[in-house]
């Protein structure tokens, strides 16, 4: 196996508290970021349609054209889908660019699929939000190393707003 995100911070953000492990039969939704193709062509393409000096300035691609360019290879699609089906993941949905796959599965299946992961429920944030995350890193079979970028829904917590209500500026000082 290998760890796709060895450098992802796993510490609990301030303000979040663990409510313990999630029941193995509970449902999860995980997002698999599949390896894309032709990424080396994207920067030039972006430059060409964004640089006023370029003859292709403003001639943007449609979503379908982007999908055509970056769609994962048939081998990637086949390898990942076979792996998910074997683990019992059902109800997987893709996107038009086919480079993300969101699947629902039980906690038990997920913890078997993503070895090392352990799903807990947490509560935190101003709205007392409940999320399910894994405080322990996950690993994937080595055969997937060239097919999956990362798995979303395990480690990153919802952000909190940094908007602040500041004290009113000192009237006398500034107006004067």
């Amino acid at each position, binding site marked *: 196996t290998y760890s796709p995100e060895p450098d992802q911070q796993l510490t609990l953000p301030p303000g979040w508290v663990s409510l313990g492990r999630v029941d193995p039969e509970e449902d999860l939704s995980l997002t698999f970021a599949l390896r894309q193709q032709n990424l080396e062509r994207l920067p030039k393409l972006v430059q060409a*349609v964004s640089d*006023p000096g370029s003859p292709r300035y403003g001639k943007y691609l449609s979503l379908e054209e*982007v999908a055509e360019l970056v769609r994962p290879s048939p081998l990637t699609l086949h390898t990942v889908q076979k792996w998910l089906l074997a683990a019992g993941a059902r109800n997987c949905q893709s996107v038009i660019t086919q480079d993300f796959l*969101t699947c629902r599965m039980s906690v038990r299946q997920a913890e078997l699929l993503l070895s090392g992961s352990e799903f807990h429920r947490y509560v935190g944030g101003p*709205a007392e939000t409940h999320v*399910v995350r894994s405080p322990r890193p996950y690993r994937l079979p080595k055969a997937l190393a060239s097919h999956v970028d990362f798995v979303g829904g395990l480690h990153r917590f919802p952000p909190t707003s940094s908007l602040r*209500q*500041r004290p009113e500026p000192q009237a006398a000082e500034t107006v004067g």
Partner: protein
Amino acid sequence: LHLGVTPSIIRKRYNLTAQDVGSGTTNNSQACAQFLEQYFHDSDLAEFMQLFGGDFAHQASVAHVVGQQGRGRAGIEASLDVEYLMSAGANISTWVYSNPGRHESQEPFLQWLLLLSNESALPPVHTASYGDDEDSLSSAYIQRVNTEFMKAAARGLTLLFASGDSGAGCWSTSGRHQFRPSFPASSPYVTTVGGTSFQNPFRITNEIVDYISGGGFSNVFPRAPYQEEAVAKFLSSSPKLPPSSYFNASGRAYPDVAALSDGYWVVSNRVPIPWVSGTSASTPVFGGILSLINEHRILNGRPPLGFLNPRLYQQHGAGLFDVTRGCHESCLNEEVQGQGFCSGPGWDPVTGWGTPNFPALLKTLIDP
């Protein structure tokens, strides 16, 4: 004199006249995205416009909500996003991406990226106030999200991200202090918006740095080709650079632009709330102004602006008020004493090229 930032203060400062609103005849649109478990209330928007929208044509409700609007109290950030995007980009159809992916185990920001990859017809301008410390995210995640931004740029979407509210940021590794860049603000494929304050908070004056304005140099992405000249000039001319050990001088520098971020009035849960501050406020304002420019471009048979940065830097920030006074905050230690970078003539890593002067900006971005 005024008692804080409202739409009319924004419009006066950035020289938006009553005619500078959406024509209502194009298919132009704009969107703001929320990832914070916050929701907005239609009734707050209606009250806000009743209080503050009297002198410009505006739409009284959001055109399209993607995701679920939860019940319960409105969030102040969600309220501000909608209210100021619809005041700056007045009378333009506005979408709200509301916490996509509500399932407990989903990451709302990632789900938003999936939505961008799953909808062919999208608003040209998207504003988002979301950011994480670069060092807290895996390189696999950062690189893939950056690729998603490239895909959006290739499609002509303008993605605006708040630059963050902790100035240059600060963290210490093995006893050494460093500045702490934020992502997605540090992605070379988004336009990052910093923050300013009025020099006199009770008047419409020139703007100075808002000390919280996020900015700096990425530790992940190299300097973007389009900003080579501007950043090199800053680094060679700034009189007050922090110690070089604090930042990666060859990294992608941000922000790219700025707008007022200090002292906003927001209506949330039916209550008008004064003195709200953060780059989450400047971002929808800049987004709304770009939507107005798109409106003119569409009426002239031009495509929307798309990924703005190459053009913005090529034009050396023409059409923007240059912010040249003030420094943002950083490590509170003896070495830098809480001071990060300082603004100066031209581009700087505190306010970018500056804040929008609409008629001048329109003139520089209308053609081609």
